[in-house]
């Protein structure tokens, strides 16, 4: 299955690494200033517990720190100017950003709380002072929810409203009423922004996107909010470029499927591009933005939001990553696909494909160990794969690889046998005769069919009556295994108004084979549409184990011709050998 790629070497493959992570939760950085870059992965564990911050040195796991909540993202950045220049690690998780220095917890930043609805605040403070009882509080909060919606309330009110009965509500109120009411939000994505210098090891600000549809820029030294901006929807992916003190541009993909741009000095995101599907990844190029969408497309937009090109991809995209290969002066786009491969694009041209054994869940490209161009892949099943780009690798755009392939394909035309040719020759020679014989036989066939039809009409041996006076429908069923069967006949008057009178059902069969319990059944008046059921028992009396047919006639009054006839082929009866 796995074809060795000529451009990439497999440096490390651990299918049992058991990692659950995203591209945003991976980082590559020289954490110890020893010139060797480490891989930092925030592992989501099982998705509920066992979350860890893992650091790989080379192929081995170097350290593991427990995380309290699900990590949203991991970033390494320089927060001060101390020597040696060692970056700090920031882990976003829930409403907090945890900062680690030298892999030791250093600081925890809490997101600013949101404004609490004044009515809600009043309700809780009155409840604290015992001016409101539990059920009144519940009513006030419930009506407030109708007004502002679930997400406009504080967590405490939300949880209070979730309490199913009075007792649990009272307990809840007692537990919580003494504390300050606050409304918190969570981080959804984050990134770094260089503060005033563009060097690799310059001080960076943190840029946070929150569930409350805000973007915050944090000062790295004092951890104060330098700038706060708002968006019409919740940010999902961020792409940041520029310098905070000079000019910067933040491109945000949001949950409403739109892309917004924020610049220095703006407070509100400017709509840049509207997508028709949810974005799965966002990458920034010099003057363009590359967006992968859920409908298997890759789009390129310029800064003004004009679509430059779109590509339809063969499978769903799971993650995207920029491959910046400085030695070649190339910036490529890697797409992790749902069909177990990584497709690498140079602009809109496919230049390479890496096949893997599993779906790609996360990718990170950069310096790992002492190797500059390393691609770290995490599989959906938890495997870890590290690929190193060969120094001889080149990514040239191949021209027209598709068309030559198509030409090689042969059309699948059914072959004709010699018999076909012989028949053709025979037809050529005898066409008039063949035609006449065929037409002659065709006429005979039609004639026979018509005769048989007329005959069946004449003898009424059809189960649906076509006569205008007595429109009837008959259906019969045989129940049982034998030797005694039950014959069940359903009669229905299919006319719309006129009822049928004086009907009877008669069973007729060979009396050497079957004996019929009631061979004559009188039918009461048949009202249109109502199904009448007539039943009788039929016993197979033959010892030869053969079966025959039973005829069912529907007759009217004393008429000699039946109205309808049904012929029932009886099944072979089970015979009691003992008797």
């Amino acid at each position, binding site marked *: 299955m796995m074809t060795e790629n000529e451009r990439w070497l497999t440096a490390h493959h651990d299918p049992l690494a058991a990692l659950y992570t995203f591209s945003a939760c991976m980082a590559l950085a020289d954490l110890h200033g020893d010139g060797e870059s480490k891989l930092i992965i925030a592992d989501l564990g099982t998705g*509920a517990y066992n979350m860890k911050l893992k650091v790989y040195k080379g192929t081995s796991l170097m350290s593991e720190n427990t995380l309290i909540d*699900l990590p949203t993202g991991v970033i390494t950045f320089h927060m001060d100017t101390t020597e040696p220049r060692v970056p700090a690690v920031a882990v976003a998780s829930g*409403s907090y950003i945890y900062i680690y220095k030298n892999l030791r917890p250093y600081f*925890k930043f*809490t997101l600013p709380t949101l404004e609490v609805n004044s009515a809600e605040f009043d309700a809780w403070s009155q409840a604290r002072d015992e001016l409101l009882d539990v059920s009144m509080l519940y009513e006030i909060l419930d009506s407030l929810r109708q007004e502002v919606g679930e997400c406009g309330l504080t967590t405490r009110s939300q949880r209070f409203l979730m309490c199913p009965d009075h007792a649990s509500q009272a307990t809840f109120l007692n537990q919580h009423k003494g504390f*300050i009411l606050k409304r918190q939000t969570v981080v959804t994505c984050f990134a770094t922004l260089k503060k005033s210098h563009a060097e690799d090891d310059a001080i960076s600000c943190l840029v946070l996107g929150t569930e409350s549809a805000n973007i915050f820029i944090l000062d790295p030294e004092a951890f104060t909010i330098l700038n706060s901006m708002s968006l019409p929807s*919740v940010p999902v992916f961020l792409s940041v470029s520029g310098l905070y003190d000079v000019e910067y541009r933040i491109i945000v993909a949001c949950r409403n499927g739109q892309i917004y741009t924020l610049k220095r000095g703006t407070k509100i995101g400017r709509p840049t591009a*509207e997508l028709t599907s949810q974005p799965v990844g966002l990458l920034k190029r010099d003057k363009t933005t590359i967006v992968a969408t859920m409908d298997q497309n890759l789009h390129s937009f310029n800064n003004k939001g004009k679509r430059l090109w779109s590509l339809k991809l063969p499978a769903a995209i799971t993650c995207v990553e920029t491959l910046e290969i400085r030695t070649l002066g190339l910036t490529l786009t890697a797409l992790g696909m749902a069909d177990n491969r990584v497709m690498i694009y140079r602009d809109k041209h496919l230049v390479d494909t890496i096949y893997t054994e599993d779906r790609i869940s996360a990718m990170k490209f950069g310096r790992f160990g002492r190797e500059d161009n390393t691609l770290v892949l995490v599989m959906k099943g938890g495997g870890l794969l590290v690929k190193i780009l060969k120094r001889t690798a080149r990514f040239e755009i191949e021209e027209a690889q598709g068309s030559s392939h198509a030409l090689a394909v*042969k059309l699948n035309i059914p072959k004709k046998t010699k018999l076909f040719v012989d028949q053709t020759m025979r037809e050529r020679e005898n066409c008039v005769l063949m035609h006449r014989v065929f037409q002659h036989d065709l006429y005979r066939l039609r004639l026979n069919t018509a005769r048989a039809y007329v005959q069946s009409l004449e003898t009424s041996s059809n189960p649906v009556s076509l006569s205008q006076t007595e429109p009837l429908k008959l259906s019969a069923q045989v129940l049982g295994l034998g030797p005694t069967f039950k014959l069940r006949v359903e009669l229905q008057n299919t006319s719309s108004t006129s009822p049928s009178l004086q009907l009877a059902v008669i069973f007729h069969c060979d009396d050497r084979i079957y004996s019929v319990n009631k061979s004559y059944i009188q039918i009461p008046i048949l009202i249109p549409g109502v199904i009448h059921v007539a039943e009788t028992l039929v016993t197979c009396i033959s010892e030869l184990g053969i079966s025959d047919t039973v005829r069912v006639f529907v007759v009217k009054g004393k008429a000699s011709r039946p109205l309808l006839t049904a012929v029932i082929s009886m099944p072979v009866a089970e015979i009691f050998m003992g008797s």
Partner: protein
Amino acid sequence: MDGVVGALINTNIKYKSGTCTAEKSLYTMNPVTETPESQVNGMTTTTVPPGSALKAKSRPRKAPELQTVERRNWLIHLHYVRKEFDLCKHLIREQLEETRGMCEYANYVQGLILRQEGKIQESFELFQLCNILNPSSVENIKQMARALFLLGRHKLAVEAYLQAEDKLDKPDWELHHNLGVCYLHLKDYDGSREQLMFALEQNKHHQTFAVLAKLYLLVNDVSSAISTYRAAIEYFPENGDLHTALGLLYMQTGKYQQAFEHLGTTLTFDPNNTRAILAAGSMMQSHQDFDVALAKYRVAAQSIAESPPLWNNIAMCFFGKRKYVASISCLKRANYLAPFDWKILYNLGLVHLTMQQYTSAFHFLSAAVNLRPTKGHIFMLLAISLTYLDDEENARQAYEQAVRLEERDPSICLNYGIFLHNHNDKEGAIKMINEFEVRMVKFRHATGADLDTEIIENGAKLASLLGVDGSVFRKKPGRTRLDAQDETVLLEKTASVTDTLKPVEESVCQSPPPVPTAIPELNPSEVPDAGNTAVLVPPMEALTLEEPPAFVSDSSNARGKFLASARLQFQEDESKVTDTENKKETPNSGFAEYSDDIFD
């Protein structure tokens, strides 16, 4: 500001003093163990007054942690966009259990996933729930409207969209586009156009352009549809579907040159676009580029191996290349795939006639005529096959029917005239040759082009045999064909009127019939034909072909048009066939074109 710095220092000290191992320090970081005051760390505004801090101390030291309902929204969203629906549903279930079904976003994504799984009604209920949880969100109402639309309740969907529009502070492309589509389904074309235009003002999306063009086509405003597509292509120059649609429209209106350009553009960007391949292929066929067309069809056969029009077109390429057995094979496959398609049956009849299998030809043609009793050309072929089957009476009746049903095609009259002449009905033959003349003159007027040389020559020959003035049937100098000779010969044979013709015939028979594609002049002569004729049969046919899904709805219109237009090419073939009673198989341009018609 001071307060913040103070808090910061405090925490720093706490960490530094207390931490030797990572685990231990993490414990201190745990929000659960912290006092509520310390959670607001880093905020500029919420320093807690000392009094309340004291108060808090007197109570139990920590509040039970309340986890935000929205804390996993980002994870649900991420898994959703990656289409990891299993994981996503698992997460949503956990989240809803934890929040007793109150998490709006989890319900919302659950609804989206159910929609993708085709459970529209269930997803609608979830969006309704979201709307109850958060009545202020426009997004929930839009999703409800979308669900209603997918359930086919367009009126309710329109109401929901209008309700959403009321709540919006600024216009939204998606909303107006969807409104336009709803109005389209409700047959309120004016309302639909208005909404779509408005949506385009908000934002240019190719979907909106496509719907707008479809709307124009529904009201038979082809020129507006074309201009819509042209506008769309300016914004989406690489969108193959838009180019294909425009190309097909150009074909319909007879602008082959432009049509071919746009179809070519499609194939540059998307070499596997089967609609464009079929359309372009049929155009190539009409220009006798059978090999190029076959190469294109080969690509298409990879993806739509069960398309009856594709196999029909392939068959007619082989017919044009005079590979009759392959042609019959492909046609039979097409017939197997679409047993009630009269065009395929017609082609089968034609190929069998060419193969001199008159019985089989009659069989297929009578099937075709049963499916399509209003088409004169089928009757003509039927008459020809009956002639060979020695059924004079029925042949005569079929000819009568053909002449009556097809009022414009001159070749039917010519064939009937030849038939009458061969059966010694001079009077009827003269009537037919006169009718032929009238139709030919009309045809020249209508199209500005001339009939196929062979037909004219045969007409002239018949006229001279009948002693009628044949001066109308003069040849145009440039249009002589090699085939023409063959056919004349054949004609004589059938007619067996004059001795003089016979020697000619023999010589012709010996020489292998020339391949039309090899002759350079042939192509140029054909092209103007196609370009000039207003009727332009081939494009129409191609159009239908390319769009297999549209097949059922469009076919009636398209067929009607084709039929009318098809006769031109058709006649060529037939006239040859009739003329040459011995049925030499000339690969005529006419056949090829004919084949195009057949496509639906």
